[in-house]
């Protein structure tokens, strides 16, 4: 019975975070700092990201299947670990950036409280990662994977990577992933604004500047790199 109550409470909290973040953080700030749930949320996003990394890594691994035993497995493991650790680092570094910027507005509050609030903002990232993962399942089977038989020829290596990244299905997946990422980062940014507002005792305007400046820089950089600058030399 307690379990059901807790589950309902958790679902209510998640809905509050997603559509009523101001109300949620106002209540949350009155409680003691607790990084357990934010860490679990970030870790969940990391696991979903790792699944996506595994799928993409398997594709790259297939490319290197002829280069020697264990190379493809090494690439898959690297992709999984890299994706999970990347989400955790994104949480830590993002919180650090928000914390530093909020100092310009004479924000108060501990770094742990910032971590906690930013962590709650990762819930949209979980949904975003799941949709990206579904996109990967849709697009990756269409990708024609070139095979690399030797790691000693850099020209061969470069040609193969170029072919893989220029594959139409791969290009489409990359673009869709980036757009989905941007959409859900914006949703997270909305939550982070309210979170940092209470975590660092800022006005709504200062909190919005604190969050939106780095987020917009990040989004613009990602979109430019994806749609204007080719992902790899020679890409169409």
């Amino acid at each position, binding site marked *: 019975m307690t379990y059901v109550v807790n589950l309902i409470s958790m679902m209510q909290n998640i809905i509050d975070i997603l*559509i*009523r973040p101001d109300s949620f953080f106002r209540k949350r700030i009155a409680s003691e700092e607790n990084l357990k749930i934010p860490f679990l949320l970030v870790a969940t996003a990391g696991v979903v990201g790792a699944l996506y990394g595994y799928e993409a890594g398997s594709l790259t691994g297939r490319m290197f299947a002829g280069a020697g035993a264990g190379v493809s497995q090494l690439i898959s493991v690297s992709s999984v670990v890299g994706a999970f650790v990347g989400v955790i680092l994104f949480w830590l570094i993002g919180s650090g950036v928000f914390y530093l910027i909020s100092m310009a507005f004479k924000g108060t509050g501990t770094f742990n409280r910032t971590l906690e609030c930013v962590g709650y903002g990762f819930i949209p990232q979980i949904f975003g990662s799941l949709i990206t993962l579904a996109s990967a399942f849709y697009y990756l089977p269409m990708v024609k994977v070139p095979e690399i038989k030797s790691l000693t020829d850099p020209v061969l290596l470069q040609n193969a990577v170029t*072919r893989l990244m220029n594959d139409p299905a791969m290009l489409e997946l990359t673009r869709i992933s980036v757009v*989905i990422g941007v*959409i*859900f980062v914006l949703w997270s940014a909305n939550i982070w604004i309210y979170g940092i507002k209470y975590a660092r005792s800022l006005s709504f305007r200062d909190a919005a500047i604190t969050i939106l400046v780095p987020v917009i820089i990040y989004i613009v950089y990602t979109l430019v790199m994806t749609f204007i600058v080719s992902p790899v030399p020679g890409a169409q």
Partner: protein
Amino acid sequence: MKNVPVVTLLVLFGMLLVLPAGVMAQADAVTPAPAYSQVTVSGVTLDPGTFFTGDTGTIDVEVTNTGTQSVTVHRATVYDSDIRLISMSTYDSVGSIGAGNKMNFQFTVRADVPEGIYYPVFSLEFQDTGYLRYPLKLEVNDAPVVLSVQDKPDTFVQGQKSVVTLSLSNLRTDTVKNILIHPSGQNVDVIPQDIVIDHLDPGQNVNLNFNLTASGPTTVNFDARYLNGPNTHRITLSLPVVFNTDKTQADPVISNVIAAQETGNIKITGDITNSGLQNANSVTVTAGPPAVPVDPYKIYAVGLLKPDDFSSFEITVSSDSPDNVPVIASFKDQDGNVYTRSIIADISQVKNPKSSNTGSVIPWVIVGILAVCVGLVIGYQYWKTRNH
């Protein structure tokens, strides 16, 4: 006379009986043996040592007079009911053999007989009386000299040099001499043109290597001639040369072919792997007609590809080329013969590029709906916040 006793008479009578025998015995002891009895056969030589059926050969008989008197020989001959003597009257009047001297007699015979051992008799008739008879052993054996194929390629390839090894074996009991092996045939070049062997001892075997380069299907005839004594014999061996694909030859395989636009032309890249068991030398890749190769890679030189080795290649063709471009890989074998392999590369998609080969806008529609939903959620929050 009346006084001679009877006993004395009996003794005298007995002496008369015994005396002639003693005189005769004494006479025997001093009479010399006939001189011809000292004549013996001291050596026999046959050429060939072993006859084939139908062979002609010579029999040399050496006779020695071991006595102290000269012996006059009237006639010498060899006779046998099966072995035919060809030199019939050579020794009808011979002459004398001095004391301690030797004399050779040579007879030509022909062995028109089945296999077996024969004993023709050498006969020496002396002038006045007496004769010498001596049987000579003559073997007739049809055991052959064998020419056979010891080793040859599994398959012959047109224009490609192949090594054929023959084996020449002497199964006879005598040595054969002056052996000449001569290959011949149309549409084929065989090196060496002849092989000469001085002699082949009984039971001996030699290997003979010939390099064959055939320009068309043919049969190579190997003709071996040899001497058995004065007789020439011949054996032949026919080797059919039928072309087929060499199962071990180099086999470059073109794969992973991808076309892409590049500075107005079309770049075709791919991998070429030697899946054969021999080296592929001087490998080059180019585009065949009706495609139009253009710089910078009208032709791509790969070079040597060892078995299971591979290389990438890149060729450039004009955008005016047809949709199906023949990608041709050529290579040489160790003899310089040129072979080609080709596949067709489809460049139609590159010539008329589509935005995507995924062919679906549904994912983008879903992304658009997501964006709208997220926008509505965020907008709803700000609307609600402002109203409060």
